[in-house]
């Protein structure tokens, strides 16, 4: 319930499961009347506004083993509860794009408590949804942003809802071909990270596909010796600011030829937006200025700007160009 005089949560009971099974069981038992707590940077914001007022908060931090970052053979596995600071520090050499993305999230303090799992699973930041408006995403039958103030909304993939994926780590993790491990009452499963996110077409009220009794436990990123990756974010401030647009690129150079290229955009669509058209312009080709420019142009093909966000097209072009230029150097 929106009330601008409110800035503390309604009382809740903090549950401290010792095992994943227990956590999942609590999630099943309480359903929507409970929320998982990781670093709390997003959850506490929502609880303090009393938009949601669950009776139970299930603290994932009490479960051992969800934190560390491990290198195993040709992959790095990051526990869902690893903080963004830990991610940044331990991936600088192996995965510079991921380290850069983690380092661009919010502020040092938020990175010290916010987790990578929470970063992937954070909710929409559309100010209408987070305000008093009863829009589609809140369960209503209009999109207030569509005919309101929409500088920061989607240019791709909007469908009734035009919110954008706010996560800075999601684009690069998609570009790197990561997989996530999820534990649910049915057991453990590993899925490509793309499968974590959802679109308004599929479910307009949530940004991800996990149910209230499912816990994200880790993210596994394959390591490829020839791979280069980068991440660039444009935001009006250099701290504390969600991306107006961001680009993550991962590719391999094979004798001057670009392979396994993935170009993923953040902040421009309701989920991380893989730009296959842009990828096609360089896959199997040389990373020269002409091809890079073609890719930059292709990245905005099919974009549908709203009244106030056409500048995002230009941002995307520049992002893709600069990211590819950086990797070609």
């Amino acid at each position, binding site marked *: 319930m929106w009330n601008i*005089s409110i800035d503390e949560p309604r009382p809740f009971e903090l549950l401290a499961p010792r095992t994943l099974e227990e956590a999942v069981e609590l999630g099943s038992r309480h359903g929507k009347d409970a929320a998982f707590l990781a670093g*709390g940077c997003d959850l506490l914001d929502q609880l303090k506004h*009393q938009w949601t007022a669950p009776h139970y908060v299930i603290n994932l931090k009490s479960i051992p083993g969800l934190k560390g970052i491990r290198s195993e053979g040709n992959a790095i596995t990051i526990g869902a509860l690893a903080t963004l600071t830990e991610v940044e520090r331990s991936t600088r050499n192996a995965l510079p794009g991921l380290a850069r993305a983690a380092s661009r999230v*919010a502020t*040092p303090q938020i990175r010290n408590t916010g987790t990578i799992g929470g970063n992937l699973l954070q909710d929409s930041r559309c100010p*209408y949804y987070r305000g008093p408006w009863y829009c589609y995403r809140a369960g209503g039958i209009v999109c207030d942003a569509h005919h309101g103030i929409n500088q920061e909304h989607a240019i791709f993939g909007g469908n009734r809802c035009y919110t954008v994926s706010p996560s800075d780590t999601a684009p690069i993790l998609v570009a790197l071909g990561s997989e996530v491990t999820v534990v649910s009452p049915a057991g453990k499963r590993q899925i490509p990270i793309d499968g974590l996110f959802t679109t308004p077409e599929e479910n307009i009220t949530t940004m991800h596909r996990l149910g209230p009794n499912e816990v994200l436990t880790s993210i596994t990123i394959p390591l490829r010796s020839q791979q280069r990756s980068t991440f660039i974010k444009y935001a009006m401030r250099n701290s*504390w600011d969600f991306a107006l647009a961001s680009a993550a690129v991962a590719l391999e150079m094979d004798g001057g030829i670009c392979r396994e290229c993935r170009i993923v955009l953040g902040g421009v669509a309701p989920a991380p937006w893989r730009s296959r058209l842009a990828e096609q312009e360089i896959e199997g080709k040389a990373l020269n200025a002409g091809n890079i420019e073609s890719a930059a142009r292709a990245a905005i093909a099919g974009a549908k700007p709203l009244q106030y966000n056409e500048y995002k097209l230009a941002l995307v072009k520049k992002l893709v160009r600069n990211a590819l230029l950086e990797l070609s150097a």
Partner: protein
Amino acid sequence: MTDDQHDELTRRSFLRAGSGVVAGAAALGAGRYGLVQIENAGRQPGRAAPAGEYAAHFADLSLRVNGSAHAVRVPHHHSLLRVLREGLGLTGTKKSCNLGQCGACTVLLDGSAVYSCMLLALDAAGHNIETIESRALDVLRMQDSFGEHFGSQCGHCTPGMIMAGVGLLRENAGATPEDVRAALSGNLCRCGNYENEIAAVAACASGGPASLPAPAMARSLDWEAKTSGSAVYAGDVGFRTIDEVRGMLFAKVIRSPYALAYVGEIDDTQARNVPGYRGLVSFRDVPGYDEVTKASERSPEKTDRLCMNGKARYVGDAIAAVAADDPDAAMEAAQRVHVEYRVQQAFPDAEHNLEHNVGAIHAGGPVAGFAGPQPADKPTIEYRRGDLASGFRQADLVVEGRYVAPIQCHVPIEPHCVVASWHGDQLTFYDSQQSVFAAQDILATALGLPREKVRVIAHYVGGGFGGKCTDTLGKSLYQVIAALLAKKTGRPVRLEYTLKELMFAEDTRNPMTFYLRTGVTRNGAITALECKAVQRTGGYGSSGPAVVSVAGEGILDTYRIPNYWYHGYSVYTSSPVGGEMRGFGHPQAVFARELHMDEVAESIGMNPMEFRRRNSLHTGDRIDTDVIPNVALMNIGAEECLSKGGDAINWSAWQPPSQKSGRIRRGIGMRFSQEHTGRNASNGLVWVDRAGKIHVPIGSGNLGTNSHTGIAAIVAQALGVKVSELDCTWGDTDSATWDFVSDASRAIHCHGKAMYNAALDLKRQVEAHRGGAPPRTDFTPFFDPKTDLNPYLDETTGTIVMHPEPKLSPPTEAIARRIVAQGGLVGLGFYVWNPGVESWGASFAEVEVDMETGQVRVLKLAAAHDCGRVIHRAGAEAQVQGGGIMGLGYATTEELAIDPHTGIPVNQSLYEYRPLSTLDLPELAPILVEAPVDAGPFGAKGLGENPVFDAAAAVGNAIYNATGVRMREIPYTWPRVFAELKKAGKLA
């Protein structure tokens, strides 16, 4: 669904707003937006409504804070911040946004900086917590370094900054200044003291500079309190065992979610089930409610607003308030109070309201006048000189333009807080207050009490910027709400704003639109100027009418303009209320006029600098308007500001936009203007007790400008003693020297002069006493008749007082008599501001614009300010830096955007509103120019506000210089600049 149906639907807005009940028609968004249906979805499922049981779960834990273990019983849902402050009384850690958006609450958790507001106390158990109260050596060293480097203006961000700095150095002892900048990027400083904060941390790094090339006396008077966390701000009162306030209740205000609505039933039945609920007051309990409400529906009336209102005129208007034993219960009770609203069509658009003479907000008409609402054909203010028509006939060219400035929010790092406490019929407010004496008057009037029954205490104020200056009845007067609840419950009551209340329920900087038209001859002389100004004042007048008037001075008072007509309209709109904010109309006006003057210069092909020089007023020119008596302009440093600032940006290399090309373009631009420094009268009082101790009870508020440090220096210099020998106090109506207000850049110049006079008087008194004279019986204050007693505008009557009486205000005279009766010697001073005292400034920006995307980067901001005489260099430079940064935000990022359909602010958070952080700053080059005036203490003028004008016009003109596109609306956000480039066909 067809597109038409979709469109049909999208023209409705549904709100899940509070537990209100909506009755009647609910059409909003008149004018160009078409009719929009607004419906209450408060009862819709999907979002939890408060219902059912309400009970906290507790845990017993041991928290390890600063090396000691504390056994505490904490509710599961409490943050570490709450437990530190409310539970342990460790109020050095500050609460500000409470949402992870500002950094004021930063503490160390196992050595890493975290936001204690975003961490559950339960999650902190088992970890090492360190706060500003830590006695660890590196914390103490950092505190001292902050003192040495002038690391605090208001000091409210300081504890968090210090802890973030300590956290960095624990991990990286050899941090570079760039590392420091990054490490402090999660700590907002609204005072804009970043460069000093960075220097203070960097100096503690190994290999860092041992110390600043420290200007003498860099330390402020109260650096120790501010850096150690012991400074008590209003929000800290009542949590420590040593506090005099005990057993306080917590209040929450119930605010309208609708932009225009009549309030019907208010029912607290459900709230009564909340344990700890103590009661409700509503607009019906406000003294004067009947008269004011009826009057404002009927005819003009002086006060168009009460502290709570039965007709909500903007989103956030106060309707009622509850008090309870703890904040949780107060919030729960507030959620459960049912309010019946009859929602009306909203009128967010000032020009529409003027055009249609809308009387829906206030029946008297759409224009806020000095005496209340008035019809559309009556401007709030007009200034005329000469013959406009013949002026335009003399012109070779006439240039016109429309300029738009947005809503800016003060967002000081300390949200407003007050504790109201009655002892019998005596009422004490511990308040976040810039101007304790003005507040005392206004609050007493609003409550119908004699002034002496009200005491206002504000020792430390976490930034004000005009937003904490209770100097008119039309302000929000949240203090009165607390007093009414305190009366009703018989307990002290604490009312603290949330971030959202701070952002838009409280006053903001008025958005304004200017229509400017200037005639100019080919050789560069201005012949005539017409300006129509339309201001959205929001639901109430507040300071809007005064701001629209002062904006007129801002438009007119820099250049020689023989013929002019300014007509300003402060217009009621269903949007947040515009009040006073640092610069008071000048930032809007200077932005518009200086953009416009660049266009005028260009129309005749003249270099913008040369054009300004040619038309600038000079020392000795006469000013004479309805509000300023005929006076001569005192010594101004305009030319020196132009030349030094120009050198700093290398103006001689200026080239017109036609010379620029490429995708990334650079440009430089300038702004030139003045602000009169001060207003009204000040008293001065300095005394010495029988033991020989000198006491300086300073009357200016301690809001972060560090005026008290300057005033102490003035007194010390006048007496020929050291500042450290003085006992300086401030911020208490019971003991401080009366001063009119602490705003209008007046503290050093006005109050400083009165205190200077008092110091001179004290010297004479001491001599007389040595010569055996009896104690003084004449309490006439000392002043210099040549400079210190000037005609002034009485703002209560609107007339100019030609012959003010040199007489102490009653509270100061009472203090003086008491001192003498107790055997002390007292020196008394007086000063009435001379309107010929003006501070001038010129600023210069260099920008880089990406012609493909509209991204603008400000590379450099050089600002030259004439402050008469530098009294305290570190403090003065900090004002220029800090004001400059606030102005840069105004120029590039800050705008409270209002949803066109519902009138509700959209970007209700700091991360969406975007005040600048340590990582967003250009090179800042403050230049202090000294053109002393006889009226000022040692020649000093004011400085606090002018730096806010530095950026907007200079950046706008620089953008034009880079791109060749005139952009007449701020802030210059990327989307806006992109759209302007596109419109002009200039996109790369």
